[in-house]
């Protein structure tokens, strides 16, 4: 074990290499660049001995990962924003082909105008592709989640790709200490990839041929069932990790001061980390509030949301917006509660375009919700017309 003090991206690169993928294919985009540069450095110093394909686009990055994965290799890539959007077609492909690819996405604003700061609309727009989606709020969590995600993706009950998200710059370019296990310990936790099938000249099969609806619907159903299984497996893998390494960032949710809470704030990623400070301050003011930081967006933990709704009033902060509808987490939480709980849910849109969401503002949002001072069920924080 050693301690590494570095940015989210460099720590992600370290984790990616220690997971021993046979193939990495990637294309640079701000703010993911230092991650792929990190891997390139490991190629140069011999720490990474797999294939590293510097492709000509993100579309090709995902496609090359698909090819490598179908040929039986563990694969990793990383991207952000427009890169993720360019991959969209192949994200569907990777999931439907049931390939356990692991990818980091650095959540960044989608243009125009050009903006490189934090915003979740890039990954939220991929929610229906079949990828599992996890959101991280610290460099240690990124490291641990990357290793755990390979184990999750390659589990025979799952065999789906995993997208690990964290905020542009706030996390990707901020140095924090992270505990790095020895390679032998990682190898012990994550054995080498053993696929159920692969492209093999001794057993030739055609993968992805034309398929009728009688089979296609079954494939979709199987993906959905696998995601349901992941709801149990994600906490189990997190617990196994804790037994071996003494850390647990939460499975589907990370809960903070929720035991006696009358109000529960639900947020994700960096806002989730910042929320802890707000919770501490609100507690000092005598408000019984807790935090449930959503880690796993897909599968969406509906059952846990219902349990939270049965316990407390919910306050939701979304760093994304489904234009013409609502913040997506807010929307899905209400959907999960339907006919299960009549909990009051108040939503906020905050931090779009990378706008800072400091704990003081999180406190303000919580107080507005608690005092019932929002005009609508969901309001845009910081907009006069909504106040």
């Amino acid at each position, binding site marked *: 074990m050693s301690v590494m003090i570095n940015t989210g991206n460099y720590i992600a690169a370290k984790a990616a290499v220690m997971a021993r993928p*046979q*193939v990495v294919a990637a294309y640079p985009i701000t703010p993911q660049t230092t991650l792929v540069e990190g891997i390139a450095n490991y190629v140069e110093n011999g720490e990474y001995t797999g*294939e590293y*394909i510097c492709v000509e*686009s993100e579309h090709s990055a995902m*496609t*090359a990962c698909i090819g490598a994965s179908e040929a039986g290799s563990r694969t990793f890539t990383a991207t952000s924003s427009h890169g993720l959007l360019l991959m969209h077609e192949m994200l569907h492909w990777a999931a439907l082909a049931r390939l356990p690819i692991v990818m980091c996405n650095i959540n960044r604003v989608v243009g125009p105008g050009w903006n490189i700061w934090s915003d979740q609309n890039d990954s939220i727009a991929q929610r229906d592709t079949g990828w599992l989606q996890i959101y991280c709020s610290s460099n240690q969590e990124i490291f641990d989640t990357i290793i755990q995600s390979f184990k999750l993706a390659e589990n025979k009950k799952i065999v789906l790709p995993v997208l690990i998200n964290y905020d542009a710059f706030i996390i990707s370019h901020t140095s924090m200490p992270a505990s790095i296990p020895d390679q032998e310990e990682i190898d012990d936790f994550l054995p080498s990839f053993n696929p159920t099938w692969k492209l093999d000249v001794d057993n030739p099969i*055609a993968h*992805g*041929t034309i398929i009728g609806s009688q089979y296609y619907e079954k494939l979709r159903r199987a993906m959905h069932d696998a995601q349901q299984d992941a709801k149990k497996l994600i906490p189990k893998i997190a617990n196994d990790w804790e037994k071996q390494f003494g850390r647990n960032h939460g499975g589907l949710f990370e809960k903070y001061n929720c035991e006696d809470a009358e109000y529960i704030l639900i947020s994700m990623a960096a806002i989730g980390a910042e929320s802890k400070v707000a919770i501490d301050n609100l507690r000092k003011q005598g408000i019984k509030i807790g935090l449930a930081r959503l880690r796993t967006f897909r599968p969406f933990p509906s059952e846990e949301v219902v349990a939270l709704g049965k316990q407390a009033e919910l306050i939701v902060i979304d760093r994304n917006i489904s234009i013409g509808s609502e913040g997506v987490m807010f929307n899905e939480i209400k959907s999960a509660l339907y006919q299960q709980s009549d909990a009051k849910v108040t939503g906020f849109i905050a931090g779009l375009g990378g706008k800072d969401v400091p704990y003081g503002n999180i406190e303000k949002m919580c107080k507005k919700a608690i005092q019932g001072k929002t005009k609508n069920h969901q309001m845009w924080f910081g907009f006069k017309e909504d106040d």
Partner: protein
Amino acid sequence: MALKDFPREEYVLQGNAACPGCPATMALRTVLKALGKKTVMVVPACCTAVIQSLYPKCSFDVPVMNIAFEACAAGASGIRAALDQQGKHDHTVLAWAGDGGTYDIGIQALSGALERQTNFIYICYNNQIYSNTGIQRSGATPKGAWTTTTVGGKKEFRKDMSEIIRAHHLPYAAQASASRPLDLFEKVKKAKDIKGPRYIEILAPCPPGWRFGMEKTVEMGDLAIDTGAYALFESIDDNVVFNGKSKLILEEKIKPKPIEEWIKIQGRFKHLFYPKRDEKCLAEIQEHYDQMWDRYRKEYL
């Protein structure tokens, strides 16, 4: 080498879903005989995605990865990397795409894979249209040809893909024809033993797309060569060598037949002859191929 000396092994099996007279299927049969069992194939959206037939059956006896339209060469890059990691350096990765997936939507991934020196063979079977989607124009469609998106005949000339490929300075590039299986076999065989990116284009006259009878595929391919509408050549480390009748045309030992002899028997050019001859367009087409040969002579003779 004669046809009777071809390997007996069949990798394109009976019961496939090809149209009668399909040049792509004829050519693939020859290509896989030349490459043999240790071949992994990548197929983007194209006729061959259909020819394989429906899940859960497959008419090819090699492993096949189907992939999105623009993604063939990138998928091949990934497979190559994985095979190399597994020590399977003796396996051939074959990217097999149509002209739409090569000239148009797939050109970026192809160019990237060639530039990265990916160790694979990319074969474009060029039927000069998007035939699988129902005969729409592509960047390979010749001027004057009717397609469902160039109803009055295509106004532009095709792009010279082989020149674009050659600008990547490959160890091996070639043009072959589905109508000449021996030449195709030998080119694929030669390509197989070379390391690095290799590109072969196969002219694939498509009976329903070009509007001719299904028994005339070979004749149509041969006439394209005889009229100089298409050339057979190889480029090895940038040295271009023409072969067959194309060599004789290049060296002006024979005169190519008039281009009209090739196009007048294809229904897709019918409007150039009926109800009255479009002399201007016919002259422009002939001039285009004359200029192509002048350029070939200047550069490769």
